[in-house]
């Protein structure tokens, strides 16, 4: 099922709390789905049996509404407004601080993040694929980001198979879901009476073996495979290919860029919810007494003015050039940087765009492929 050499175990529905309890026992702060501000977000569970059931959300371009899963499942929701990104790449953090000492000399000091050991329960395949891309960026050989690395190594990832993709999902088309295949410590697939569970790391295997699960039978493993296939088939959106580099780079003057720019707010929400976007700005926060300062990194976006600011001019003064930058980096030049597209098909940029701009529709219009949705 999850392309793991480990044999699959079966965790009965009424034993899910045992998994959470074990993770808590190991000292992990456990994050699970919770409803906050009308959306399903990851929040700390206060008890092993604290995972909610029946959460679901209906998603469409520019639209997200909470609903209820009639089957009362634990993980029947597709994905929430954020992936794992904020857990590893903090939206705002201090990188270093400087202080004037008694002799008037400046003393610089690195700020080491205080990252708690966190277990995230309910991670999706698309988000794991995205995390692998963030790793490729932040943990690149010789350019390892210590802040990201510290947070990242504290994560224990419990993935779940997506059984109910959202209408905005297209991970099957990018090859990143809906069944997790790599990057997790544990992966679960929810069936009516329990979870087929596999481990994907040594620490995952240790947790699994402590639970003393019986092996999943062939029928259960087969049900999971079918569930994954059905979830892939249920997806209504897609990209016309996985390598769109040349198709997009040869259309840099396409009139569609002007058309989409007339609808785009350049608010940057797509980049903030995108699980692979990693752009940031660095700002200084001097203390009021003039004796110290903190150097901070904050999430930035190629849709903002300062992001395109070079000495004396702005390379992306208008919305057209910003949207084009985002889309062509994500789907085209990302290949040159990371050997694959930067899109994992999570669909968040579609759902969380306040005016509902649909990336798959824009790509179809730009490439003339007509492959879109519905």
């Amino acid at each position, binding site marked *: 099922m999850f392309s793991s050499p480990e044999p699959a175990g079966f965790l009965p529905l009424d034993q899910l709390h045992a998994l959470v309890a074990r993770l808590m026992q190991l000292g992990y702060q456990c994050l699970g789905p919770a409803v906050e*501000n009308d*959306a399903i977000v990851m929040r700390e569970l206060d008890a092993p049996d604290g995972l909610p059931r029946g959460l679901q959300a209906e998603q469409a371009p520019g639209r997200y509404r909470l609903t209820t899963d009639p089957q009362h499942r634990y993980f029947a929701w597709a994905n929430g407004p954020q992936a794992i990104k904020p857990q590893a790449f903090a939206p705002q953090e201090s990188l270093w601080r400087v202080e004037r000492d008694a002799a008037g000399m400046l003393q610089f000091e690195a700020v080491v993040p205080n990252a708690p050991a966190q277990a995230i329960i309910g991670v999706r395949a698309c988000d794991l694929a995205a995390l692998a891309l963030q790793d490729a960026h932040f943990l690149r050989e010789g350019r390892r980001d210590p802040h990201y690395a510290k947070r990242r190594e504290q994560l224990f990832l419990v993935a779940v198979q997506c059984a109910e993709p959202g209408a905005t999902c297209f991970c099957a088309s990018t090859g990143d879901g809906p069944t997790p295949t790599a990057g997790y410590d544990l992966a679960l697939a929810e069936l009516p009476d329990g979870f087929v569970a596999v481990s994907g790391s040594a620490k995952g295997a240790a947790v699994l073996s402590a639970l003393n699960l019986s092996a999943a039978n062939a029928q259960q493993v087969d049900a999971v495979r079918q569930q994954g296939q059905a979830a892939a088939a249920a997806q209504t959106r897609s990209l016309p290919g996985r390598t769109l580099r040349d198709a997009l780079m040869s259309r840099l003057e396409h009139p569609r860029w002007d058309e989409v720019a007339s609808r785009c707010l350049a*608010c940057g929400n797509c980049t903030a919810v995108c699980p692979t976007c990693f752009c940031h700005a660095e700002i200084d926060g001097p203390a*009021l007494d003039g004796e110290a300062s903190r150097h901070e990194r904050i*999430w930035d976006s190629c849709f903002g*003015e300062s992001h395109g600011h070079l000495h004396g001019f702005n390379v992306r003064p208008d919305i057209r050039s*910003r949207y084009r930058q985002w889309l062509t980096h994500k789907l085209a030049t990302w290949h040159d940087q990371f050997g694959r597209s930067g899109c994992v098909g999570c669909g968040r940029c579609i759902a*969380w765009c306040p*005016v509902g701009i649909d990336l798959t529709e824009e790509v179809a219009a730009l490439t003339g492929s007509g492959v879109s949705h519905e």
Partner: protein
Amino acid sequence: MNTPKADPIKPRVAVHKFSSCDGCQLAFLNLGEDLLTLAGRVELVHFAEAGPLDPDTDVDVAFVEGSVSTAEDLERIQHIRQHSGLLIAIGACATSGGIQGLRNGVFGENWVTQIYSHPEAIASLERSTPISSHVKVDFELWGCPVSGPQMLAVVNSLLLGVTPRDNADKVCTECKRRGYPCIMVTRGIACMGPVTRAGCGALCPSLGRDCYGCYGPAENANTGALAVQFRSQGLSPEAVVQRFQSINSQAPVFLAAADRIRIKSHD
């Protein structure tokens, strides 16, 4: 014998009030302990709300709250400009004309007589205008009111001799960094965040309500696209106009947005 350490010359600072509610001066006062720290690094020579009064003196930095709304304001702003090294406009009134700018274009004698029992006591200009309409402004801090941290950051930058950071990004950037799910998307609420300048820390969305644009237009604000979305969310053309005609009604970008909708709905 110890030579006493020479105190560096402290910059002289004034805070002036024009037509306004004093809320931006309060943003200064509400800094509490931080204001005391700050007072140790600058010489506050004029700040009526806090005590010192010396409106005519020469200063290095003048903060100006309020809009130009009376004949007296017209003269006073020229005087202040001549006596100030740097002039910084703070708040919606000083940067766009403020809420009182709603009278621009509709002001009439009969309004005054209808509202006030002693109309002869009212000496307002026909229009309420931002400081930059009258004198050179070195930096603008938008907001109704401006936030304390914003003010501190500006003063701090000036003390360090660097240009203050001008963050003209949208409120959405602050919303997302704080992890608030978009209320336009989750509840279909007509939020001005996507066209409004950051600086408030996404205060209204943090409480589940819509941004009403009190920080004025962000850079590259696509008001046309947002208006289309507001209409599809069920707002009437009049309601969309009102979204843009509020605290910063006279900010050119919001004024133009409202005019376009009015023209379109009369077509």
